[in-house]
């Protein structure tokens, strides 16, 4: 569970199927599949017929959910090979979505952040998009110096994959960027970098 009181971090309240929506788009990553699978009793054939599932496994975690999702027999069900391809398809899908569409996002925080960015760019209001955090506590972090984003950060400090600086993770989150803020840890004493701690497994 994410319990730290970080004011700028979104609150992931969990997903409940909205019976009033005319169309449902579930965007799921890894163990996020469970956010949908655990609501089987609410998924009437009528709802399922208007449901689109976009799913991506997360590394070795979450394998095996493809079959369970396929067994729901939703209107459409697609497993993406990578997060990037899923986001690309989501952009197109939302581009043609109408007013009665409800988008649901579940997975790690970095995944939710990236899918939310696509939704915001499509003109959706973030407060109307149910989200559920599932799986790893890994963070998506933007280097405040070079602006490059490093995915799946589990330690602090960590090395920016773009500029190579040693960054600590500030508890400050930008929805627009979909990431936490990474700040150089040894600016005052160059080279004095503490051992990384596994804070976000």
């Amino acid at each position, binding site marked *: 569970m994410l319990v730290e009181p970080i004011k700028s971090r979104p609150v992931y309240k969990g997903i409940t199927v909205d019976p009033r929506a005319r169309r449902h788009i579930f965007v799921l990553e890894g163990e996020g599949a469970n956010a949908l699978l655990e609501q089987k009793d609410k998924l009437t054939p009528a709802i399922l017929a208007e449901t689109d599932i976009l799913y991506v496994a997360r590394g070795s975690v979450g394998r095996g959910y493809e079959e369970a999702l396929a067994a729901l027999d939703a209107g459409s069900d697609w497993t993406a090979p990578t997060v990037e391809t899923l986001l690309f398809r989501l952009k197109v899908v939302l581009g043609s979505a109408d007013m009665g569409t409800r988008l649901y996002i579940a997975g790690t925080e970095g995944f939710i952040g990236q899918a939310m960015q696509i939704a915001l760019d499509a003109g959706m209001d973030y407060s109307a998009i149910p989200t559920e955090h599932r799986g790893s506590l890994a963070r998506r972090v933007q280097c405040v110096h070079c602006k490059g984003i490093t995915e799946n950060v589990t330690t602090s400090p960590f090395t920016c994959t773009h500029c190579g600086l040693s960054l600590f993770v500030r*508890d400050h989150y930008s929805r627009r960027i979909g990431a936490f803020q990474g700040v150089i840890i040894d600016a005052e004493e160059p080279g004095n970098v503490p051992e990384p701690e596994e804070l976000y497994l």
Partner: protein
Amino acid sequence: MAIVFRQETFRDDFTYRNSPENIRRFPFPFPDDNYMYSVNMEPHVKGAAGTVFENLIDVDEHYISEMADRALVLKADPLRYQALPHMMQAQWDTLELLMEQQAAGYPEHFTLEKNGDRWRWINRPLGIDDTFTFGDLTTLPMEPLEYISRQTQGDITIVDQRDNNLWMDAGMVTTQADWSLDFDVGMNFMEWHGPVPLAHQQGVFERALKFLLNMQLGKPIRRYNWTMTINPRLDTSPENYPKWGKDRTTVTPENVGDKVHLRVEVQTLWRLPRSNALLFVIRCYLMNMSELVTVPKWANRFHRVLGSLPTELVDYKGITRYRDVTVEWLSKYDDGAPTSAGTFPD
């Protein structure tokens, strides 16, 4: 009386200094001998001549050099200026307000002539004489907020008001105390204040937000904020922290007077007429310790404030490494006498 503008730098050789007259008008922010957060907002009304409140938008001897430093920051990092698309009306509101205030306060330096929507803006210190159509983007060399904020001292942000909250949706931020506009743009009031310690628990931000949401046109308000900076560096951004972080380790008992600066922000907030947005002007003033102790009352008081500052605030403000050496240096100038009421010099 015309201001004599100084030629000075805020980087490299750091030639920034305050003239004796400018020291006397420094906005010393401490009304007491100790400090804690408060919702310290007051009406932004004109004050006495010889103070920074003589005019509602203050222009001082550092104007030309500060604008040159801003241009250098933007050249290296254009992301310091950001404006979300729905903020264009608020940008024009801001341009009007800052032109009007500067022209009203300093007619010898700035002139604004309005003929309907056709406006002529003369900025003599920067050698600008432009005629444009108010509301027509194509008649300015850049967006209105960027244009006027390249000609106004202080960081500028515009916050949109909707859903009973405030949203930081535009800004020009080059003289900031360690926060990133690029990261914070689009955030609401609670979100962008997220990293500030102590104040959340005390309900400071809830009260402040409620107050700000109800601000009225023509009744601007102001508050102080402060921190400390090593060397007179305006751009202490997180982006450039690798460049200025080391400065904090360079303070010795011998160089405290020159290196250690009190950094005061006078934040003024204004309701804008057409967009209903709020304009935040965050004006930074720097004064080194040698300059500060030329005013005996400030020497006494600042020594006591700094010595009694709670540890969380010492850490948050980033002054841990040099607080003690500075307090020790200041102690030589504290005669132990009670300080008089108010913030102004005796």
